């Protein structure tokens, strides 16, 4: 057999799997989204319907807040870890990155242990103030959960970017009289900007599409993935849930495409 034929044969299994279990189903999903009572207009429901719009805004705000806080936390911790060597550094890095592959459910459980009815924070506040603070099952708990799985990922990206920084630039700025703060503002942060955009976009997209965490914490938190879930399983609104999923998919895909144009590769969205 010729080399060319062999190459085509090599692509065959992948082609079959992808078409059968991804391309066709996605096409079906898109079609179903337009099969409801409103037809194609069902796709705009995400923007028009006040209830859906509120959910969308909720989700976007939550994802945005997660992204901003994660970037700040990861930059401070990441720069610190990359720039200093001290005993126990490796352990500290391991502690900060081990939740990397946790599914959303486990993260949800972690938040329950921290802020649930028998949680650490509740215990603590009870001892200090006599009142148990429980917020795991609210939007704040969800926010904390999103932070929990975003921080490890973004810290790794930031640390890699800090490692690639040219120390000569910082020395040059210092030689011109710049204080440590000025060096950060004028040299370091601008140099890290691409990493911020790339990892920030990924954190945002992941938070937008996260399901497991919200599911574990409660079914009454108003985020888009939960809405899609309830529409599908409880209300059997196939058309609506399909349309909403396609909408959500488009948003996350777009954000990640933006990220790719800044960095070279995309990191997985999980949980």
């Amino acid at each position: 057999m010729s080399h060319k034929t062999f190459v085509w044969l090599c692509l065959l299994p992948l082609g079959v799997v992808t078409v059968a279990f991804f391309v066709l189903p996605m096409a079906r999903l898109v079609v179903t989204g337009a099969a409801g009572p409103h037809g194609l207009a069902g796709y705009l429901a995400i923007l028009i319907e006040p209830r859906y719009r509120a959910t969308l805004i909720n989700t976007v705000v939550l994802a945005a807040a997660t992204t901003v806080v994660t970037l700040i936390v990861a930059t401070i911790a990441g720069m610190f870890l990359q720039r200093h060597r001290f005993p126990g550094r490796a352990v500290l890095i391991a502690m900060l990155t081990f939740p990397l592959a946790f599914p959303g459910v486990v993260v949800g459980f972690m938040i329950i242990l921290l802020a649930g009815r028998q949680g650490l924070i509740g215990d603590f506040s009870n001892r200090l103030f006599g009142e148990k603070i429980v917020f795991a099952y609210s939007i704040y708990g969800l926010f904390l959960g999103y932070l929990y799985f975003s921080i490890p990922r973004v810290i790794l990206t930031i640390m890699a970017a800090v490692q690639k920084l040219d120390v000569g630039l910082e020395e040059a700025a210092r030689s011109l009289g710049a204080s440590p703060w000025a060096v950060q503002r004028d040299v370091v942060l601008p140099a890290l900007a691409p990493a911020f955009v790339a990892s920030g976009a990924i954190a945002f997209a992941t938070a937008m599409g996260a399901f497991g965490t919200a599911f574990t914490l409660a079914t009454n938190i108003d985020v888009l993935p939960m809405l899609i879930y309830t529409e599908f399983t409880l209300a059997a609104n196939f058309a609506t849930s399909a349309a909403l999923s396609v909408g959500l998919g488009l948003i996350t895909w777009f954000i990640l495409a933006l990220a790719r144009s800044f960095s070279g590769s995309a990191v997985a969205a999980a949980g």
Partner: protein
Amino acid sequence: MSVAAAGGASVRVESCGKTFADGTRALEPATLDIARGETLVLLGPSGCGKTTMLRIIAGLELPDTGGKVLFDGRDMTSVPIERRNVGMVFQSYALFPNMSVADNIGYGLKIRGVPADERAKRVAELVALTNITGLENRRIDQLSGGQRQRVALARAVAIRPGILLLDEPLTALDAALRDRLRGELNRLLRALGITTIYVTHDQSEAMELGDRIVVMRKGAIAQIGTPREIYFTPNSRFVAEFIGAANIIEAPVENGHLVLPGGRQPIGGDASLPSAVAMIRPETIGIVDAAGAPLGGIIDSVSFVGDRQRMIVSAASARPLTVDAPNTVQAKAGARIGLSIAPQAVRLLPPEG
């Protein structure tokens, strides 16, 4: 054209050594005095400690305990680089990619709080001085190597530093550009007149630019002197071979003469030891008739180099001699010739080199 702080500051490096955290001894304790307005070149092969010395003067490295750095008599050892008012040009130029050329040059002034219009004036001055008019709004990645070098220099000089520090500023350029910029750089440094400390491994750069040269080797100072002193009276074999071409001859001494396979050569200096290590520069050896010459040899090869002829002569001494002869000399390979060397051109070196 306005000049920087007239003359700049004098620098004294006192017993400064540097041992790094991993144990490497980059610099043995050394003492240097640099006069106001002087251009001092730190010259040596890579790993000799010249860059470490420069960074200690800059304030980017702290000397080992006991070392002191003084500017105009003031102890700056514990002062960080941000407050030393030095102008530094890095080997990789370290231009800020997020700023334009004009912003780069004006950065030090911005940090010092110089108002925008004054800053713009000063930047324009420097752009003219370094011949980069027209590039003010370009981004760094749009510049060529030579242009970047000039921006780096302009940026360092803009703040009117007391001391200018240059870390191999021409090394990153290709040979032709380097030669051209060397002359420009020299003129610029003379015009500015600031105390300048220049690090390089290129001896022709050192000779052209330096008022004095500090030759360094393996973390220690080998010799300090003017270019002429270093060239004509090196104090060791290492310095002799590092600067210019050198013929190193080891031979027994008799009656004030070197005893060589090809004859005898009178020595000008102190010839009391039984044997000597002598250096003779190729251009100080004259080609004469073999008849009657006290020292003779056979020409191995003749290479025409443009402004002179480079000849390899064997049988005169144990190892072949390199001779630079003017183009007027008519001699061919294989010919027997005599060598005429003035006694003062024979420089004795300490035995261990």
